[in-house]
């Protein structure tokens, strides 16, 4: 299933390796991935903020060295590209195993679930911003729409989470649709200002429309998702081992994030995805070649917003409490930063950006307010030194097999 390939965004050429070479590649890849994951585990298990900082600096150093060595870079990319099935399977395995490793530290599992939620939202923004190039600085609006819809339905009308979840997504999509109309008329800075203003208005309304949102009291006692009699805060016990209830949320988040990745990959590789990119590259030319620009932009806004709402709904039912302070401008900037730091348009990068920006601040809790200062400073540095993000999107998805091209070249010939 090539569409499940979310590490690469390039398509592989036909595989001509022998079994021996393949086995060698796999062993190398296995070692590398295990190493990376091991390092990651150490990092996440570190409790001391200073240690975490040192650890991060070390990673940055390695990344810089890696970046300076094009041969290493090339080699790793080739390796990943040629063994994408292996690499992807390994990655999924790691993600599934993660909570079992930290069974005695449920907080880390909780963080994993939170990272999954933010990954869903970042992937949503990636559709709007990464695929279609539409600046949206008000993404928290959709987060809020999903969270409030699902939680208020559950609290006041006893609506099940499983109905509230898609409804939250749809409500968010509606909010995306609503801003898409005025947003069609503006570009660049002006689009950023419009969405920013939208985010601020909605946040003020969340505080003041108490009949809808309980205002600054917030929505409390949101029930966890439930299946029949069992709900998500009851731990599952299998064979005498009790698994922490955070694992339920973790796997819920993981499955939804996986679905979001799958949908993103399919959209990216489709006719629609290509047309979105055309709009991002040259809007006027896109228009002249039969692309219904306003319609596709509205779709991009609404689809992105939908995933924001899905993330919001899960968030509300996991945390159990929703407050306007969750949906301030800073949240929007955070989600925007996830997309940009990860690499706009690159699905794997965006997910990694979301995971990093969820985990790192949590691990640096000791620094308290200084974290935000660090975040701002790092963001400035990243914008200056690596504005394309950690994993810049490398186009060239629709690659033809070279023999087909050669045949055509021969046929046409130079006259």
């Amino acid at each position, binding site marked *: 299933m090539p569409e499940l390939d979310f590490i690469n965004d390039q398509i592989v050429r036909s595989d001509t390796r022998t079994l021996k070479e393949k086995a060698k590649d796999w062993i190398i890849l296995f070692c590398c991935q295990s190493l990376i994951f091991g390092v990651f585990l150490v990092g996440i298990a570190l409790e001391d903020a200073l240690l975490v900082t040192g650890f991060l600096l070390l990673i940055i150093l390695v990344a810089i060295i890696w970046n300076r060595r094009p041969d290493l870079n090339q080699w790793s990319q080739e390796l990943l590209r040629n063994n994408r099935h292996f690499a992807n399977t390994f990655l999924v395995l790691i993600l599934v195993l993660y909570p079992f490793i930290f069974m005695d530290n449920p907080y880390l599992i909780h963080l994993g679930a939170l990272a999954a939620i933010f990954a869903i939202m970042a992937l949503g923004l990636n559709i709007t911003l990464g695929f279609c190039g539409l600046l949206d600085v008000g993404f928290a609006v959709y987060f809020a729409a999903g969270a409030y819809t699902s939680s208020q339905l559950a609290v006041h009308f006893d609506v099940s989470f499983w109905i509230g979840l898609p409804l939250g997504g749809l409500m968010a999509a509606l909010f995306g649709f609503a801003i898409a109309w005025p947003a069609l008329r503006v570009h660049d800075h002006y689009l950023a200002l419009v969405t920013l203003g939208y985010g601020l208005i909605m946040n003020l309304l969340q505080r003041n429309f108490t009949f809808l949102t309980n205002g600054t009291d917030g929505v409390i006692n949101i029930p966890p998702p439930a299946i029949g009699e069992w709900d998500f805060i009851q731990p599952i016990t299998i064979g005498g081992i009790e698994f922490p209830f955070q694992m339920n949320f973790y796997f819920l988040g993981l499955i939804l994030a996986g679905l979001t990745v799958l949908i993103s990959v399919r959209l990216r590789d489709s006719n*629609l995805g290509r047309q979105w990119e055309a709009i991002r590259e040259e809007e006027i030319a896109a228009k002249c070649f039969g692309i219904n620009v306003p319609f596709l932009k509205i779709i991009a806004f609404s689809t992105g917003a939908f995933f924001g709402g899905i993330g919001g709904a899960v968030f509300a039912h996991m945390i159990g409490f929703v407050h306007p302070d969750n949906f301030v401008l800073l949240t929007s900037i955070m989600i925007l930063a996830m997309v940009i730091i990860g690499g706009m348009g690159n699905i794997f990068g965006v997910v990694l950006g979301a995971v990093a920006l969820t985990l790192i601040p949590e691990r640096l809790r000791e620094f308290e307010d200084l974290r935000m200062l660090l975040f701002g400073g790092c963001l400035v540095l990243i914008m200056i030194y690596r504005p394309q993000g950690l994993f810049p999107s490398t186009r060239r998805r629709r690659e033809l097999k070279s023999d087909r091209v050669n045949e055509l070249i021969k046929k046409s010939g130079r006259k």
Partner: protein
Amino acid sequence: MEPADLDNTILKCQGLTKNFGGVLAINNLDLEVQKGKITAIIGPNGSGKTTFFNLVMHLYDATSGQVVFGTENTNLLELPTHSINRVGLARTFQTLRLFLNLTVLENVLIGMSSQLNSGFGAALIKPKWAREEDKLAEEKALEILSLFGSRLISMCNEPASSLSYANRRRMEIARCVASQPKLILLDEPVAGMNPTETREVIKDIQKIHEAGHTILLIEHDMTLVEGVAEHVFAFDHGSKIAEGQFKEVSNHPAVVEAYLGKQALKQ
């Protein structure tokens, strides 16, 4: 001037006017383009040629007048730009507007957008018809790229930004052809090219014409116009000042005056 064959008219403008805050870019323009021919528009800089294209593609709103297209007499001024492509018009851009980060092949595929039916649902479910449509489109795109010899095809997996300048101009034309238009509008297809490249592009244009396309082009390069155009319009100050075959138009006093000024005429 040959008598206009009414059934054979593909594009017809009547009283087309465009007023940019007091400046008449196009002034009461009447013009008819014949099907199956290569027609050229010449005229000095600022005479409204590109504005005319922009009006036809409805990138600007006309101040008054009408533009009627094809046998169904579709009024282009009432259609949004993307539907105009669907009706059968495609254009190139003088300033090159390629999708630089998309591959050459993808650029052509974008040109075919009007013919592709797969949208949001098809992207998610990937039904059989959509996959077949994709495959067919790819074949078709390669066919179009091979119209230009090996120049574009050998680059088909590279981003358009890696093309040379002349090949970018070809890419623009290829993208037009891909949308299967009834009328192709070429905006200065050889601007900035050397004589050899110009000759090659003339051949390309003739090849496309032979494949059955009607072409309307804007050009400054008189070798090109002389070489390909069967009918020529001369513009000045947003109005048509002459039309006919290249010889007649190029010797027309109004045209000489527009290009060289009144003094040249007196000498």
